C-alpha cells in the first residue's frame, strides 16, 4: 500500500507542475476566447511557433529558451495584433465572425502547421539548457527542473497578467470589453483598439508557452493539435476569463491526467482532457468559477 501511496503522491506533484505549464498554455485562450469572444482555435499553432522560435535561437546562438521567449514577446505581440486586424476587418465588422471566423482560424492552424512541416520536417526538435537534465529529490517526491522552471515562470506570468488587467487603464478596458462594449465606447475607448492590444497579448503568451513546451518535451509541428482540447477544457472549466479559476482548472486537469497516465498508461491521457471538457460543457458550461 505504501508504494502505491508514494506513486499517487508522485503523480499528484507531477500533475501540479504540469498544471502550471497548462495554465501558461491556456492563458492566451482565456484572454481571446474568455474575454474577447474570439474563438482562436489556432492558438496551439502559435504555441508551436513559439517552440520553434526558441529552438532556432537556442540551437544557433545557445540562448536560454525562456530568455528567448521574453525577447520574442514583442514579435508575437505584433503578430497577434496583425492577425486581429485581419479578423476585425474581415469578420467582426461584417458581423460574420461566428461560422466563418471559426473556419478562418481552423485554416490558420493548418497553414502554420504545414508550413512548419515543410520547413523543418516532422523530426522532433529539442532545446538545450542547464536545467533540463537534473531532478530534485525530496523523499518519494521528484521535482524535475525542466518542469519546475516552466511552472515557476508560468506562475509569475499569471500574476503579472492579473496585476496588469486589474491595475492599469488598458487592462481594465480589456476586462470591460468582454462585459459591455457600449459602455466602453462611451468612456471614449475604442473597443477595436483595446481588443487588438488584448489579442496581441494573448498571442505573446504563446511565445512563452511554446518555450515551456519545448523545455518539457521534444516538439514536432503536429503536436499542437493535442493542446486544442486541453486549452479549451481548461478555459471552459475555469469559467471563461477568470484567471484564478483557470489556474485551478489547469492544475486539476494536470493532476487528473498525471494520475491517469501513472495508473492506466499514457495512451488514455488525451481522453481525460476531452472527457472533462465534454462533461463540463454538458453539465456545467459556466465552469467552476464562472461568472454566468
Amino acid at each position, binding site marked *: 500500500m505504501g508504494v502505491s501511496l508514494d506513486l499517487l503522491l508522485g503523480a499528484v506533484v507531477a500533475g501540479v507542475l504540469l498544471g502550471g505549464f497548462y495554465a501558461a498554455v491556456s492563458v492566451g485562450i482565456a484572454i481571446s*476566447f474568455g474575454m474577447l469572444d474570439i*474563438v482562436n*482555435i489556432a492558438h496551439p499553432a502559435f504555441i508551436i511557433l513559439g517552440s520553434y522560435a526558441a529552438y532556432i535561437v537556442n540551437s544557433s546562438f545557445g540562448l536560454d529558451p525562456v530568455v528567448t521567449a521574453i525577447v520574442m514577446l514583442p514579435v508575437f505581440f505584433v503578430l497577434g495584433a496583425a492577425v486581429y486586424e*485581419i479578423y476585425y476587418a*474581415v469578420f467582426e465588422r*461584417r458581423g*460574420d465572425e*461566428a*461560422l*466563418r471566423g*471559426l*473556419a*478562418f482560424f*481552423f*485554416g*490558420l*492552424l*493548418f*497553414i502554420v*502547421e*504545414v*508550413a512548419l*512541416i*515543410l520547413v523543418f520536417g516532422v523530426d522532433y526538435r529539442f532545446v538545450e539548457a542547464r536545467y533540463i537534465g537534473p531532478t530534485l529529490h525530496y523523499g518519494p517526491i521528484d521535482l524535475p527542473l525542466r518542469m519546475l522552471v516552466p511552472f515557476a515562470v508560468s506562475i509569475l506570468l499569471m500574476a503579472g497578467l492579473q496585476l496588469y488587467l486589474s491595475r492599469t487603464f488598458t487592462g481594465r478596458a480589456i476586462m470591460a470589453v468582454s462585459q459591455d462594449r457600449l459602455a466602453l465606447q462611451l468612456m471614449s475607448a475604442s473597443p477595436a483598439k483595446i481588443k487588438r492590444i488584448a489579442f496581441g497579448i494573448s498571442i505573446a503568451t504563446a511565445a512563452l508557452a511554446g518555450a515551456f513546451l519545448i523545455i518539457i518535451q521534444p516538439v514536432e509541428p503536429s503536436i499542437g*493539435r493535442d493542446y*486544442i*482540447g486541453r486549452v*479549451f*477544457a481548461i478555459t*471552459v472549466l475555469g469559467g471563461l476569463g477568470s484567471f484564478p479559476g483557470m489556474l485551478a482548472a489547469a492544475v486539476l486537469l494536470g493532476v487528473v491526467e498525471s494520475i491517469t497516465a501513472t495508473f492506466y498508461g499514457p*495512451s*488514455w491521457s*488525451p*481522453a481525460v*482532457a*476531452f*472527457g472533462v*471538457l*465534454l462533461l463540463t*460543457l*454538458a453539465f456545467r*458550461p459556466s465552469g467552476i468559477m464562472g461568472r454566468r
Partner: protein
Amino acid sequence: MRPATFWLAAVVVGAAFFGLSLQVPNQYYFQAGYVVLQYIVLATAWNILGGYTGYVNFGTAAFFALGAYSTVALYKLLPLPLPVLVMIGGGVSGVVGFGMGYLTLRLRGAFFSIATLALAVVMQTLITNWEFVGGSRGAYILRPAQVPLLGNYIIYLFLVMLVLSVLAIGIARSIERSRLGFGFAAIRDDEQAAEAAGVPTLRLKLAATTLSGALMGMAGAPLPYYVTYLDPASGFNLAYAVNSIAMPLIGGMTSWVGPLIGALFLGTVQQLATVTISSALNLLIVGLLLVAFVVIAPNGIVGLFNAFLASIRERGLRKHWKRAGGDAVRRESPR
C-alpha cells in the same frame, strides 16, 4: 425540378458517369476518383448540419472513422457484403450523431464546435485502446482481388462510393425543398425566434446531426477495404475534418451544389498535388484556399457565380436603359 425528377436525373448522371469511367483504361483513375467521391459524400454530409442549420462540426473524422472501424470489427467477426457494412457503419455513426444532437441543447456556436472536436479525440483514444480492432498498431484487411462483372475490386469500391455520392446529394437536395429544410434555415438564421415561432428545433437538430453523422459513417465504412491497412492516426486524420469544412465553404454552403463543386475542385486539386508535388503540400493548399475564400469570397464559388450573373444582368439592363431612355433624358434636359 421536383424531387422525384431530381432523383431520377441524379441517378442517370451517376450511371452515365460510371459508364464513361469504365472507358478509362487507367487503374489509378479509380484510386483517385474514389477519394474525390468520398469527399463529395463527406462535404455534403457536413453541409446538412453546418450549412443548413449553422452548427459547425469539427468532428467529421470521428464519424468517418467510426464507420471505418465498425467495418474492421465486423470483418473480424463475420464476413458480410460491402453494402451491408456500409449500412451498419452508417447506423453506428448515426447513433453517435443522434447523441451529439443532444449536445446542441446546451451548446451553441463555438461551444458546440469545440465539443465535437473533443468528441473526435475521445473516440480516437477509445479506438486506440481497443485491442480487438488492432489498437494503435492498426488492422489489416484482406480484400478480394476480383469481383464478378466489374473485374478489379477498386472499380467495385468506386461504384459503391459513387452510389453513396448520388444518395447524399439526392438527400441534401430533397431536404432543401422540404419543411425540414425550411426548419433548418430558420434555426440557422435565428434559433430563438424559430423556437418561439413553434419550429420544433430540437427534433430538427437531432434529424440533422443523425443524418449528417450517418452519411459520414457510410462514407467511412468502405475505407478499410480501400486502404487495406487502417490505424487510428489515419482513420481519425484531421484532414477529413478540414476538408469537409473547407469544401462546402469554398463551394458555397446554401445549397447542395456548393459542397459538390467544392469537393470536386479541392479533391481534384489535392489528387493532382499529391502526384505532382508532395502530399504534405495538400493540407497547406486546403488551408490557404479555406482562408482565402473565407476572407475574399465568403459565399464560395456559387456566391461568386451568382454575383457574376447579377452583374451581367445589371449591365444588360443598363445598356437597354441607355438605348431606350438615355435619349429621352437628353431631350428633356437640353444642357
